[in-house]
């Protein structure tokens, strides 16, 4: 068991190193540091100002280890691994502070969205699976496909226009962490987030549940006189939760990262908004830090899933 955990973590470390290398290639080797400087400072800047800016931001060293012992590749690895992310290319603010401030709002939005989406998805899927191969089932699947065919952008614009602008139920955008008003600001992004996700989720959960209903244990339960409702809620739900939980646990790292579009449109100052601002402002140092953090969270989450699986199911360790 311990050997498996160690091996799994070691592989995770290698994958993170691969991500770092890929980021280095994209952000340093493909994108010229002079280009980054010019994007930050503007086109009509004397060369010595650009050199000064590059020195301040640590872009002035050679790229590769074979060019010099003190190079950007080692710098990049060292800084990312020690969480010393440096300053933003756009406004020189420390990136770490920005991330620390962003995690809270991201979690405040994503946790209720995640919980509501999961609950709604499972309940609807159970309902549809209970009426499998009837018109209710067909209508349910149809609605799911409808929901999946609409772009998230249209959901957001629609919600902001109809709910906020015409009906005045909720503010169009904005955020206030005070507990008594925070729900007013979160209602719409949570609603839109649940709407965009539920089509795919319900269909997936439904497939899982319908597949479970053809198993032998369901037939046994039926043979001993168990009602259909009880079979659904007791036997099928319990067994169906295994594949569902896999999908759900893998989504947990993304709770921290929030949602790029929802946060940005609804003015929630989370990590998603920070990332979008970095994209719009050509802020490469913030952007690569965010990509690294998201990937790190994902790898850690995956290791957690694999290890917990191996605790439950010893066969996994043999692979």
């Amino acid at each position, binding site marked *: 068991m311990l050997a498996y955990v160690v091996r799994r973590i070691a*592989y995770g470390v*290698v*994958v*993170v190193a*691969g*991500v770092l290398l*890929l980021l280095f290639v*994209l*952000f340093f080797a*493909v*994108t010229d540091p002079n280009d980054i400087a010019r994007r930050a400072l503007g086109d009509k800047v004397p060369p010595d100002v650009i050199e000064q800016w590059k020195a301040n931001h640590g872009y002035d060293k050679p790229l590769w280890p074979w060019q010099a012992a003190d190079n950007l590749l080692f710098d990049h690895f060292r800084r990312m691994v020690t969480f010393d992310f440096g300053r933003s290319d756009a406004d020189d603010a420390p990136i770490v502070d920005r991330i620390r401030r962003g995690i809270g709002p991201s979690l405040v939005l994503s946790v209720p969205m995640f919980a509501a989406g999961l609950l709604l998805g499972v309940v609807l899927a159970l309902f549809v699976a209970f009426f499998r191969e009837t018109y209710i089932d067909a209508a349910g699947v149809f609605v799911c*496909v*409808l929901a*999946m*065919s*609409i*772009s*998230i*952008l*249209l959901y957001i*614009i629609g919600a902001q*226009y109809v709910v906020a*602008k015409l009906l005045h139920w909720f503010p169009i955008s904005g955020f206030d962490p005070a507990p008594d008003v925070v729900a007013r600001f979160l209602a719409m992004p949570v609603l839109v987030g649940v709407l965009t996700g539920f089509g795919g989720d319900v269909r997936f959960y439904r497939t899982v549940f319908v597949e479970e209903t*053809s198993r032998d244990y369901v037939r046994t339960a039926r043979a001993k006189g168990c009602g259909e409702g009880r079979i659904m809620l007791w036997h099928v739900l319990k067994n169906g939760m295994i594949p569902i939980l896999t999908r759900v646990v893998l989504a947990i790292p*993304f709770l921290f*990262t929030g949602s*790029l*579009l929802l946060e940005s449109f609804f003015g929630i100052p989370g990590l998603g908004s920070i*990332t*979008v601002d970095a*994209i*719009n402002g*050509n802020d490469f140092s913030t*952007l*690569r830090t*965010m*990509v690294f953090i*998201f*990937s790190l969270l*994902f*790898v850690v989450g*995956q290791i957690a899933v694999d290890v917990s699986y191996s605790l439950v199911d010893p066969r996994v360790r043999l692979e």
Partner: protein
Amino acid sequence: METWVVSNIVVAVLVAGAVWSGVYVRRSEMWAQAARELWRRSPVALLVVSLYVGIALVDSVSWIGGDGVGEDTVALHEARSPIDRLFADFREESYSAPLAAVTFSGETPLLHPGTHLFGTDLLGRDILHQVLKGARIALLIGGVTSLLAIPLALFFGVSAGYFGGRTDDAVFFLMSVLSSIPSLLLLIVLVMVMDKSTLSVCIALAVTSWVGFCRISRGETLKLRELEYVQAARALGIGPVRIMYRHILPNLMHLVVITFVLMFSGLVLSEVILSWLGIGVDGSWGRMIDQARDELSRDPIVWWNLSAAGAALFGLLLAVNFVGDAVRDILDPRTLRENL
């Protein structure tokens, strides 16, 4: 070579390819049966998809000169498609509501009263024209990306599955790294570091979307290479490349078809998000939606360009999703077995 010449050649190749696959499907019993079943299950969705494909193909054929230019002298030297010719000299000064007879702001009559089915935009361009042209962009994004991503995924997936060992480790590592980075972010980063052309958007989409199918084809190859007929081929001394090409690849084709259709809507949706970030493709529905976003706050409200682009996008994705579901149900042997 001029882009419009290339585009005409591509159309010719595509039509020839479609005819060739049609003949092939007719000859092969399995594919012919699948095609009949698909038509039986979702005729409406298939017709809608064909309509979009038809519009896109017609819009891809273009030539210089000819009539219908009117007073626009610039258009004389541009290659224009039949759709452009249909809408030539059809501009207004500014906004026009759908089928309106007078201008948006005042009481002056329009140049072409009551003819703009979906209205016009700020510059007076017809929305229907733009929506029709968007079909080509959407199919281009889905098609070119799949054309890049699927062969890439097959190459890596099949060789990893067949050779195993070091090759497999390397491909598996590459897949782990790429799938650890949230795909939307990787997509954005790739488009940002490349130039912002249609092709680079497609390349970026391909890089972020090939991993899923690579995993599937690797797994399937692992299963197939242990089958008796593959072992028999190996025992006869047939080389690995020939085995992969003749004995493994044909057994992955149904997965290729399923993946192609299922991948499509995701790609088009991703482009909409890229457009919102200002790094999408010119003339796409995503770009139209993004540009029309602020017009909702005008007074009186300009709703028609957003609705038209949104509806066109929704129609295509809905039809493709239905076709995708039907294709998966028909071709996926696992579900086939369950239905028997």
